[in-house]
């Protein structure tokens, strides 16, 4: 794999690719892109390394922000709060981090690690813990394969910090939420401290390269005339996202949404542009979960289901879906490590209340 570099010049491509991998959720990557941009301007371009370059025993720490999306739009971090989360965890563990790892590549948390790495002068690893976005802390490969979410550190811009040690992923999630509320719903978090061996074994690799590649494909596709075709063609050349296809080309004819348990749950109905008898329903809980055509499942979580503007290829976040939009629904395979029985027990269809088993996209019609 050739080395990439994420700079002020290609951040927009990178963030657009990350929005695609956010599969409708993951938060507006704009603020994250601005934070990374400002950090690169001040501290320079961070080095991107592959997991192979780590020693098995190297300490690797993750960097992310967590909070309520409207609050994140107003109360951004100060930067030092990100540094503090890493430093407090280093202090607790009694050793220094060798690199920063994104916990999720989809949405706003794709760019936060770029900011953290630039600020701290550490390399960022070309990998993450899901190769997409998910709504809950424990929905990550590291949890699936036995790495603990804790100890973790949550910080705010006042340089308050809370160290959490918990006996399970869901418990850690609950404690983090409670802390975030007290801190004003916009916090920095470093969870899942890992060693190099764990990153090599359990991360989804090459996802920074992937996000950048997706963004570049869309941009170049626009110049050549068909960004969606360019995007799908690019995905087919990638190691695990190669079972990519356009599931549907249609327009939004109905949209129902509700907010339950703090999650935005919705159903988007599409009608075929060329054939009005073709119907697709995409169900989402923050991220898109399942796409069904005339009642038949065509793609299901943890495989990725993304909605893009049919003309520009721009990924459309679930909160911006609207009646009348012309959309292409693109689905692609998740990494093999995301599709094992252990993984499906954590973020398979049934974990989202869907009453069916996972079937890989390449085995569906």
């Amino acid at each position: 794999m050739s080395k990439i570099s994420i700079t002020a010049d290609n951040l927009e491509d990178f963030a657009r690719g990350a929005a695609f991998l956010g599969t409708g959720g993951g938060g507006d990557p704009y603020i994250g892109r601005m934070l990374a941009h400002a950090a690169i301007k001040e501290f320079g371009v961070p080095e991107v390394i592959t997991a192979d370059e780590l020693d098995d025993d190297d300490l690797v720490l993750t960097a992310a922000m967590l909070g309520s999306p409207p609050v994140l739009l107003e109360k951004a971090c100060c930067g030092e709060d990100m540094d503090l989360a890493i430093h407090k965890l280093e202090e607790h563990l009694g050793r220094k981090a060798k690199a920063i790892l994104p916990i999720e590549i989809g949405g706003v948390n794709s760019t936060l690690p770029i900011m953290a790495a630039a600020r701290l002068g550490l390399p960022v690893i070309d990998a993450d813990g899901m190769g997409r976005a998910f709504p809950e802390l424990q929905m990550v490969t590291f949890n699936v394969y036995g790495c603990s979410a804790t100890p973790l550190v949550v910080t705010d811009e006042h340089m308050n910090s809370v160290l959490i040690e918990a006996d399970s992923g869901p418990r850690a999630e609950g404690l983090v939420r409670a802390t975030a509320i007290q801190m004003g719903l916009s916090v920095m978090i470093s969870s899942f401290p890992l060693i190099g061996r764990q990153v090599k074994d359990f991360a989804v690799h090459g996802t920074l390269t992937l996000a950048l590649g997706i963004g570049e494909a869309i941009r170049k596709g626009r110049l050549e005339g068909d960004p969606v075709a360019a995007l799908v063609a690019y995905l087919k050349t990638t190691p695990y996202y190669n079972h990519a296809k356009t599931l549907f080309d249609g327009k939004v004819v109905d949209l129902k949404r509700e907010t339950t348990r703090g999650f935005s749950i919705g159903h988007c109905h599409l009608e075929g542009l060329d054939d009005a008898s073709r119907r697709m329903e995409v169900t989402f809980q923050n991220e898109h979960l399942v796409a069904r055509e005339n009642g038949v499942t065509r793609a299901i979580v943890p495989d990725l289901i993304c909605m893009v503007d049919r003309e520009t290829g721009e990924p459309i976040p679930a909160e911006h879906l609207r009646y009348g939009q012309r959309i292409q629904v693109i689905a692609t395979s998740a990494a093999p490590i995301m599709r094992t029985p252990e993984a499906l027990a954590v973020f398979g269809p049934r974990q989202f209340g869907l009453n069916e088993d996972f079937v890989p996209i390449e085995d569906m019609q």
Partner: protein
Amino acid sequence: MRIGVDVGGTNTDAVLLDGEKVLSWCKKSTTPDVESGIVAALTHVLDEAAIAPGKIQCVMIGTTHFTNAFVERRHLLPVGVIRIALPAARALPPLMDWPADIAEAVGEHVHLVRGGYQYDGRINAELDEEGVRTAARALSARGLRTVAITGLFSSVNSDMENRAAEIVREEMGEVSISLSHTIGRIGILERENATIMNASLADLAVSVVRSFGKALKQLDISAPFYISQNDGTLMSAEFVERYPVLTFASGPTNSMRGAAYLSGVKDALVADIGGTTTDIGMLVNGYPRESSVTVDIGGVRTNFRMPDVLAVGLGGGSLVLETDGGVSVGPKSVGYRLLQDGRVFGGGTLTTTDVAVAAGYADIGDKAKVASLGTDLVSAAVAKIHAIVAEGVDRMKTSGKPVPLILVGGGAVLIRDEIAGTSQTIVPDHAGVANAIGAAIAQIGAETDKVVSYEEIGRDAALKLAKEEAMAKAVEAGAVAGSVEIIDIEEVPLAYVPGGAVRVRVKAAGRLDFTNGAA
């Protein structure tokens, strides 16, 4: 009796209204000094209706002047930028995503000060009054005359911004001060951008508002005048001097509001067909539906109250070309050269207007010049024109149900047949000056935007409080108390927040009180 004026980039339109009745109207060219174009238009409508200037009770003006100035980077002042948010958002400095030329025009006089609130109005950090004072002194020393102040969560609690303004005034004297809570919504970067844009227009605002005043004075019109803002409500002249940015995108709003007024239909789609583009929007209860996404103006990201408008490349000057597969229409247009280049006007370019004449939809120019066009070509072009509008209409609809379509603008003659997905097509009288009508009928309005806890006081009580606050604000702004209505309520539950925290936006508007010239 009142006059509505629309000062566009090309035309200055005016209408004279007596109650609900249009007495006279006209279209004149916009002049570089603005003033003489307005004088010409007003003179025309007064003379035609034989009305004495003293009878005019009120003049309402819609203008794209400030938008154009910002987009073209003309007449912009360097701005003192004060952000009250530390320690939050230090990693996201002001002006960072502005195009270089415009960032340079407003200068980089940025001061970050400690202070601000939490999402629920609790204090996040106490205001550093000395910090504001020091910043003001530095800005004063640099000779700046306009200051933009943005506080963290000021849309929830504006006290610190107001206090900072007092301090700035103490230190800098009579400078122009723009406060973010009066301009934008939650979203610190976008609100701050809009506030800085506003501050940069401070001088231009004063001179344009004065030239409006001079035009009226020259005609002996002593009535107060108002300027329309992007949500279809009015601002007093003094208010616009302070908040010119709120006029951004008022043009489409005025034409949609005018369409609602002229047709008497409050829930409908509106297509404003101009020379080059057609703006399609959705009227909900007589007001344009707002855009939910951020809007770039001159390359700067904002979260203004903007009408959600889809512009498609179809107008009266759009080129009609024969192709292998049939015919193509637009998006290229002869634009303002239609009167020279169009076939019916003796030119050599086939336009949509020529097609409309050939099809018998319109009687403009010399019909004989298009008599030789093949009927196949004409009917294919007509079908294409209708298909373009139909697709735009379908994109803007909020549900599958057919809704009425109101056509306004000079290009309304292009459409005669039914448009798919609509229940009827309405072309009201005076459709060509719907934008000036929209300015004339604009109301006085106000908005509240805050995060409230439904669990604490219950949804009904929380909404009631928000509605009362919005209505009181509208009356304060000059609306007749009994006429104020709630025109929009938006509730956004905050994910991850316990206690039923909901962001509530309420907008109220009412008839302008002519009697005391309030606001």
